[in-house]
């Protein structure tokens, strides 16, 4: 079943924040991540889809049915909350069986089905424990099993990994994706962690100030960001204010740069994007877009090394596998991307 959000608008009465005409769709089996800084409206979007808020305008369709005016309990959505929201007075098994109980399924069958759901998340041995006796990761898996056990139309994940430590987060990320694939369910995952979003999702929606800036695959989002904000929010980036000063030539604070200007007229203000891994160290003398400077920051991250090279007029952020001294770098023209100013 699919989730379609069409020109959705909402405004909080007091704060003035909200959503402005957000549209996106998640196909059956698709995993869509929604990212953005806090206050961008991503949680509001989730609450609107879940039915805990009512939109001022626009439409939400789940499996083709308009959800306007349908209360949350009838929307048949599996939701995993940030703090898991497991019922403290029930065991793991009872928690998972609860939505089946609400659907009038007999005790024996619902416990059986809940047991199978726990087995799928490798928790069968902990079925009789209460939430307070489970670790964060285990609670997370119980919450996931509970959200999926009643075969909901779609799965909504509200920052489900933010309460876990870094080591468990990566493993849980893979696990969520595996379970989601197995169920073939449309999934909307809200997170502030762009790395998490890129690694888990089929497509990523970037939001800011209540508006959807770009909806694209992780690769496209990284390689062809729609604007300066998306470029800076997703991954690391060199962003330069620039003015087109000739055919395939722009002027920046660090000097002229050769790049494809895609036929923009001279004098157009633009933003130039160069991803740090595209910056080459120690280019031959006379290479185009070559800069000489001094290393001001040097961070060894194991598999790579991230450095800041101070050049006249600015700083260039680069990533390299080399461990040698860095005095000059080159930004290859085909790695520079022109964005609106």
């Amino acid at each position, binding site marked *: 079943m699919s989730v379609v959000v069409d020109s959705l608008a909402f405004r909080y009465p007091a704060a003035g924040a909200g959503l402005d005409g957000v549209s996106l769709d998640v196909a059956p089996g698709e995993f869509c991540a929604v990212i953005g800084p806090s206050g961008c409206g991503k949680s509001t979007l989730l609450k609107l889809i*879940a039915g805990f808020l009512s939109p001022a305008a626009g439409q939400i369709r789940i499996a083709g049915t308009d959800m306007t005016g349908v209360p*949350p*309990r009838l929307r048949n959505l*599996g939701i995993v*909350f940030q703090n898991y*929201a497991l*019922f403290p007075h029930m065991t793991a098994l009872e928690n998972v069986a609860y939505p089946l109980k609400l659907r009038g399924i007999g005790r024996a069958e619902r416990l059986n089905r809940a047991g199978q759901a726990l087995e799928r998340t490798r928790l069968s041995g902990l079925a009789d424990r209460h939430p307070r006796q489970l*670790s964060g990761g285990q609670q997370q898996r119980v919450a996931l099993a509970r959200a999926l056990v009643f075969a909901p139309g779609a799965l909504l994940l509200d920052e489900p990994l933010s*309460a876990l430590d870094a080591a468990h987060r990566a493993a849980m990320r893979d696990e969520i994706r595996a379970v989601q694939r197995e169920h073939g369910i449309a999934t909307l995952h809200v997170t502030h962690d762009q790395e998490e979003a890129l690694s888990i999702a089929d497509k990523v929606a970037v939001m800011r100030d209540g508006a959807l800036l770009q909806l694209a695959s992780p690769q496209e989002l990284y390689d062809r960001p729609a604007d300066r904000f998306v470029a800076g929010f997703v991954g690391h980036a060199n962003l330069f204010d620039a003015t087109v000063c000739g055919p395939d030539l722009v002027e920046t604070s660090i000097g002229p740069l050769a790049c494809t200007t895609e036929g923009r007229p001279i004098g157009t203000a633009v933003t130039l994007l160069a991803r740090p891994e595209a910056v080459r160290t120690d280019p031959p003398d006379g290479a185009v877009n070559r800069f000489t400077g001094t290393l001001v920051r040097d961070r060894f991250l194991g598999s790579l090394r991230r450095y800041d090279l101070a050049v006249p007029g600015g700083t260039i952020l680069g990533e390299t596998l080399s461990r040698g001294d860095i005095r000059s770098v080159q930004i290859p023209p085909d790695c520079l991307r022109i964005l609106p100013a």
Partner: protein
Amino acid sequence: MPIVTALYLLYLTAPIALLAIGSVGESWTNSLLPSGLTAGWYGQLWSDASFRRAFTVSLTVCVATCAVTALIGVPLAYAIYGASRRGVRAAARVLFLLPVAAPPLVLGFGFILVFSSDSLPFLGSGWLLVSGHVVSTLPYLMQTLVADMRHLDLVTLETAAESLGAGFRQRLLGIVIPSLRQSLSSGLIMVAALSIGEFQLSNLIAGFLSRPYPVVLLQAFYGATGFACAGTMLLLLLAVLSALASASAGRGLPSRKGTPS
């Protein structure tokens, strides 16, 4: 420091120990300790009609107080917990401080003024006693309940239940009440202990035939010392039992704070 602690403990326990000794002492007049040993005072207590009636009154008032505070307290605590308006929260804070800030004496005088009038002639009735106890104990129950609701993050639990398909009734009976049962029972036992031991207010507003135990007990101190000591020991026993029950009912509450992450 250990000496100070020991002295303080002695200061706390000495009166209780003296009462216990006095309750089995045969005669106690103008001496540090009583002389002789007897169980007679307890027997006399058992056969005293006014004490037996007071005991029954106290238990009845206690049960009624618990029932009424629970019926009012749960929805009221829920409303305060769910209120986002500043004014409601401020009012709730005042309510929580009321039994500390306003002495029972003040409440008692207020009751006398209002309910001895011709239009509201209820002074001395059992129900007025119950409502007095409700007013003075309700804040304690509410405080326990609201704190537990906040600790449990009840709103999120309800939201989760709603997303899983639960309607209002199902959430109330399946999630809200069961997850509050520990704080509700520990809060109610506290209410019971307070109600059984309540003297100031009861002394002012109880009618002659509906005097609760502590009020009757005061009269005993004008008579034989041993008898009064035995009566006090009985009250103490009840209070200790309530406190122990309250502690064991609330045992699960603090442990939930240490949820492993």
